[in-house]
């Protein structure tokens, strides 16, 4: 009979298993550390050469050996923010639809499956579809308004990104809304509020941190998205205030140029962009998950 304390078991099998679990957890931490170390070590040359000006200079010239990532940072920020703005109304509608109006039933199942399907479509297919279905539409639109008919550009990329990130904020936001205690809602109804007023003054304020976390996490996804953006952003290394103009993002410049970066400084600069991406998405994700944990989703 094994009556010893679980954690102090002298049983070999128990110790072996314990060790196995510890080892695997340790491995994960090692993996994380390895990622940080690799990215930093390979970026060192670029960091030492350019310092902080890497983030503020917009000239990216592999021939002359001068690298400044501002164009790409601008592109990422612009496409992600635009995508977020475009996605929020729709995500919010889905949240309210699934969380409040139709929590069960056929309509709810249809929308739930649709959102899941949207989340499941691989990003390269989004890019492919956008290239042949969305870009011609935008091109016609541009030709009608005398804008150069690139078709591709920041706006196109933002639209595709928006469609891709809606499922993320929608599903998290829906769970946040469903966490609202029904007593709060019922007391509001008892006082004569309409459904809209309950949503606006009770449910959403209560669930706002969850909804915010969902939006934050979808932003993290938008920042790191590579394939769909590369295919429709036009790949131009210029900062332009015009959203119909083509641009470039951090993720797509790495995808385009990494396999051919020839000298050490070039590679180091690209890895530094990767490091920046890693830090940005890391911070966004950690904050988002922290909020979710606080409200216990």
């Amino acid at each position, binding site marked *: 009979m094994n009556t010893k304390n679980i954690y102090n078991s002298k049983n070999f099998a128990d110790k072996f298993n314990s060790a196995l679990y510890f080892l695997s957890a340790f491995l994960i931490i090692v993996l994380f550390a390895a990622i940080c170390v690799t990215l930093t070590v390979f970026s060192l040359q670029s960091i030492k050469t350019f310092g902080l000006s890497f983030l503020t200079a917009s*000239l*990216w*010239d*592999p*021939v002359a050996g001068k690298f400044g990532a501002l164009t790409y940072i601008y592109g990422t920020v612009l496409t992600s923010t635009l995508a977020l703005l475009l996605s929020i109304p729709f995500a919010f509608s889905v949240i309210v639809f699934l969380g409040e109006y139709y929590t069960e039933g056929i309509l709810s199942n249809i929308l739930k499956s649709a959102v899941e399907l949207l989340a499941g479509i691989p990003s390269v297919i989004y890019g492919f579809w956008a290239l042949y279905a969305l*870009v*011609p539409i935008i*091109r016609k639109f541009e*030709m009608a308004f005398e804008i*150069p*008919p*690139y*078709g*591709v550009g920041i706006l196109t990329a933002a639209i595709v990104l928006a469609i891709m990130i809606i499922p993320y904020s929608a599903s998290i936001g829906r769970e946040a809304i469903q966490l609202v205690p029904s007593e709060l809602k019922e007391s509001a109804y008892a006082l004569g509020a309409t459904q809209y007023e309950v949503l606006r003054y009770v449910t959403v304020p209560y669930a706002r941190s969850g909804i915010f976390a969902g939006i934050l996490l979808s932003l993290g996804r938008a920042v790191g998205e590579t394939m769909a953006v*590369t295919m429709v952003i*036009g*790949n*131009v*290394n210029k900062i332009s205030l015009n959203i119909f103009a*083509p641009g*470039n993002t951090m993720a797509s410049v790495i995808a*385009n*140029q990494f*396999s*051919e*970066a*020839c*000298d050490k400084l070039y590679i180091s600069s690209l890895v530094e962009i990767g490091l920046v991406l890693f830090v940005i998405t890391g911070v966004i994700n950690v904050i988002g998950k922290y909020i979710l944990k606080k409200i216990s989703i």
Partner: protein
Amino acid sequence: MFKKMVIASVAVFLCTVFFSSVYAQNKELMGAGATFPYPLYSKMFDVYKQEYNVTVNYQAIGSGGGIQQLMNKTVDFGATDAFLSEKEMEQSPDNSIVHIPVCLGAVVVTYNIPGNPALQMTPEVLEEIFLGTIKKWNDTKIQAVNPQIKLPSTNITVVTRSDGSGTTFIFTDYLTKVSTQWAKTVGTGKSVNFPVGLGAKGNAGVAGMIKVTPGSIGYVELIYALQNKMAVGIVKNKSGSYIKPTLESVSAAAAVKIPDDTRVSLTNTDAPQGYPISSFTWIILFKEQNYNSRSKDTAKTLVEALWWIAHQGQKYAAPLEYSPLPKSAVEQSEKLLKSITYNGTPILK
């Protein structure tokens, strides 16, 4: 049950490793690089596999990528339309890089305007379009060179390469030679800062983008424009004649003395009937093949495949509108291939 799963997966893994190493006896080579000759390479390697059962896996990631992956020693050979500069050659001081010419091709100016007329282009017009100073199709300068054609008033959308490209190198090399303004502001290179233009990946990407964007113009290898029934510009060469890019005009441009290491630029050729934006395309490999514990077998397979390309493979060039190598270039390739060594001894006898 857990134990069973673990045993099962370990067994599967071991079987896979075993079978893959058995399969590894099947000869396989890996190459990467230029998209310029990709249609030809994909045909040649397809035939080579059927005839000799050697798999050559070629990925067209751009000349810049080809050079870089060879330097990283992650591929057996690279392919580039931009021969390595002295500075790039210096990056491998102890094992020199050998350039083997494969064929000749033309970089053409292709565009998308209604009717797809064959437009005549002068160096000055090309320079200004790609610098962005000419913005509309019906600009007087373009119209002057094409008096019979009614040009539309659409804006010109320039399409360039977003990746490191030998095709870009050839095109910018030509523009640098014919335009001091271009030489000053942009220069020559695989990846330059084009003043205007959308970026697309690979020759295929540029052709794909031009095909669907009205009013666009860009530079691609000839076969990409032909296979997709796109318009091709007729360029004025150094002698003043307007030359259409064809097998003959490209071969004419190559009637120059080829240096021993075959690293030569053919743009802005003196040849009177030569197309001014022609170029060789090369396969690059290391002279001493014993590095990173490569086997002598692999080295031999590689050199034999390259020998085949320089001889029997040449007959696949013309149907795809690439010019086969002139005799002098074939002789040079043979000399260079015989100089490839393994542990100091030449592989081919």
